[in-house]
């Protein structure tokens, strides 16, 4: 829907598939997700499908398997990757007299409940799964797995489809560095604007997911409205009207920010999932006053008066505040960058996006690194901190009640893509 106003098309986005009448499907659905999408289609016979998935025979192929409701389609897959027939026999009924296992923290012997949450849920990005073992309602162990691999499950030049523009810019800069070509200043400013708008959209989409895990319909609706306000400005090159009405989008984000700063949000997130792992990157690190924002070293960003958002608590609330502040600041940066693009002002150079020997763009989840490939060869990519975030999220969930644990995991804004 990027670049289009759903309301202008007569569409009203809804919170989940169960409330939808029309599913707009991308022409490219990574294979690990395709069967789950098909499951959703089979569960919702009234759902009309528009897009590339229409031509796929998945619906007919899987219809017989999932009629009656698939737990996998509801975000919970007890069969994949776990032996549900051993520790917790969901198929043979529940035998309350056969509870075995180690005593839990409160001294009670509980039968563990093992399941996989994902890879399609309403609160985590598609392709991300959490393998969980519950002791009662408390997480005894959790492991977050990313199931999608860049260049394998998606386009070969896109290591992470959640942030296509930032990667596109990184790849372009890497290629330009390799060739020694200098892009015009206008293009560089447009790249800044596009990356910042994508950052804002990414943070808002993450917040919408977090709001769903919080069960907070008001925040879901406000985040959705902000996304709709920002989305028409996304794209590279920038849409012709880009920047003209960004002020309205900024106002929408401000309304979201007020709720995130409030006490209701703090009641569910303050002090939860405190993490100060030095391997983290991006907003996760900056929420604990760790790490740097590579934009601070960029002359273009310095010209825009950029200042990194730093929080200190390192908990779920700090991560949320860091992202919502960034989402708002990014729109301001994008507006200024588009103004400069129109006047082609500024002395942009390739160094604007480059540090050291690699092209580096600060993406929504941290720095994205692209190394130019050999002539005719593919570029190489790296996204430092993403694997550390998945590991940290799994560790932070342990010991928390399931609902709190899910909020903590979501607060790390995890990517389902393995970038290698």
């Amino acid at each position: 829907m990027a670049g289009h106003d759903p309301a202008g098309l007569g569409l009203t986005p809804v919170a989940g598939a169960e409330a939808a009448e029309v599913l707009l499907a991308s022409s490219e659905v990574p294979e690990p997700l395709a069967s789950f999408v098909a499951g959703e289609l089979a569960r919702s016979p009234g759902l009309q499908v528009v897009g590339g998935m229409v031509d796929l025979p998945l619906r007919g192929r899987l219809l017989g398997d999932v009629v009656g409701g698939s737990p996998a389609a509801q975000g919970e897959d007890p069969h994949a990757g776990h032996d549900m027939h051993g520790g917790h026999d969901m198929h043979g009924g529940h035998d309350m007299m056969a509870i075995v296992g180690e005593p839990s923290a409160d001294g009670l012997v509980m039968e563990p409940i093992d399941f996989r949450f994902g890879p399609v849920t309403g609160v985590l990005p598609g392709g991300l799964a959490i393998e969980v073992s519950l002791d009662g309602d408390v997480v005894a162990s959790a492991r977050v797995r990313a199931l999608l691999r860049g260049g394998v499950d998606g386009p070969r030049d896109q290591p992470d489809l959640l942030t296509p523009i930032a990667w596109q810019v990184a790849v372009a800069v890497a290629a330009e560095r390799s060739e020694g070509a200098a892009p015009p200043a206008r293009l560089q400013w447009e790249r800044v604007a596009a990356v910042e708008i994508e950052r804002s959209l990414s943070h808002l989409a993450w917040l919408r997911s977090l709001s769903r895990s919080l069960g907070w319909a008001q925040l879901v609706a406000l985040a959705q409205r902000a996304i709709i306000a920002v989305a028409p400005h996304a794209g590279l090159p920038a849409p012709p009207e880009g920047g003209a009405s960004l002020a309205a989008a900024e106002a929408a984000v401000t309304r979201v920010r007020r709720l995130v700063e409030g006490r209701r949000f703090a009641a569910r997130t303050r002090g939860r999932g405190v993490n100060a792992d030095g391997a983290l990157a991006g907003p996760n690190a900056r929420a604990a006053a760790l790490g740097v924002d590579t934009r601070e070293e960029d002359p273009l960003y310095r010209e825009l008066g950029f200042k990194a958002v730093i929080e200190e608590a390192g908990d779920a609330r700090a991560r949320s505040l860091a992202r919502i502040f960034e989402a708002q600041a990014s729109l301001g940066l994008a507006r200024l960058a588009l103004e400069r693009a129109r006047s082609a002002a500024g002395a942009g150079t390739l160094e604007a996006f480059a540090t050291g020997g690699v092209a580096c763009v600060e993406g929504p989840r941290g720095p994205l690194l692209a190394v130019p490939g050999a002539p005719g060869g593919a570029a190489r990519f790296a996204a430092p901190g993403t694997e550390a975030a998945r590991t940290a999220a799994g560790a932070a969930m342990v010991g928390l009640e399931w609902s709190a644990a899910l909020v903590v995991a979501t607060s790390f804004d995890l990517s389902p893509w393995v970038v290698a």
Partner: protein
Amino acid sequence: MSDFAPLAVMLIAGFGALALACVEQVVAGARPSPVRIARDAVLSLREPIARPQSYDGWLFHLAPALLLLSAIAALAMVPWAPGFRGIEVESGAIVFAAALAYVTPAVFMAGWGSGRPLAVVGAFRFLALMLGYAMPIAMITTAVAAPAGSLAPAAIVEVQHAVPMALVQPYSLALWLPAVMAVALLAPFDVATAPGELGGAGVFSRYTGLEAALVALARRVLLLAVAGMTAALFLGGWHGPLLPDALWMALKTLAVGAGLLWAGRVFPRVENDRLVAFAWTFAVPASIGAIALAGLTTLLFYR
């Protein structure tokens, strides 16, 4: 009790559920559309009934019917007008609480019977929650009944002809609302259904077709019942100027229903452990205190 009272209760359940579904659309920021609600119901009814691989058939398939029965039984105790007081029982207010108590086994059967790990978690959450909140519901009912000297809901309405009980016992209303919202599976106390967190509709996520429609109807009838009884016990029921008695009661019920739904949108879901801790450390003792205060108020002002 008229011979037609059961039929009237059924009609109130049907039309009231439809009206509250429209209110729900308005609260969610959409235009009220009974046509869309009817179409969704038809679509749901056209789906086949689920027979999941791993489930306990008896519990799973009986749960929606038990949920609807308990909701209708609770609704039958709500007095709508002086001429129509539902199914009149002298201890109707306590029967209302007793009917709500059957929501707990229904929800537990749905979650346990479905065989999904997270649905089982939702079932146990609800069980723990209702162990804590069943007592406050019964005790607050007793507290508001004290001034009337009767457990008949119509008598409790009559005693509020001058001052609504919400003004006399505001603390009782403050304890009553979270308890009935929890039992009606309403956000932010919807720990058993918890969309997103428990996948789909939590304990009800495996229901399809007629059973899903029954669950949806039962949940709205539950909302209608708790909203109606809240209006009767705390807001003076049918008392009001100018308008017909039944219209006053209907308006108050819809207003309470809208308020409960609105609260579910503007507050994030409350975690189960906090809800249970609140019940045992505050709500239960405070409910006992509410009975004592109600007795004092009755002696001072109603005798």
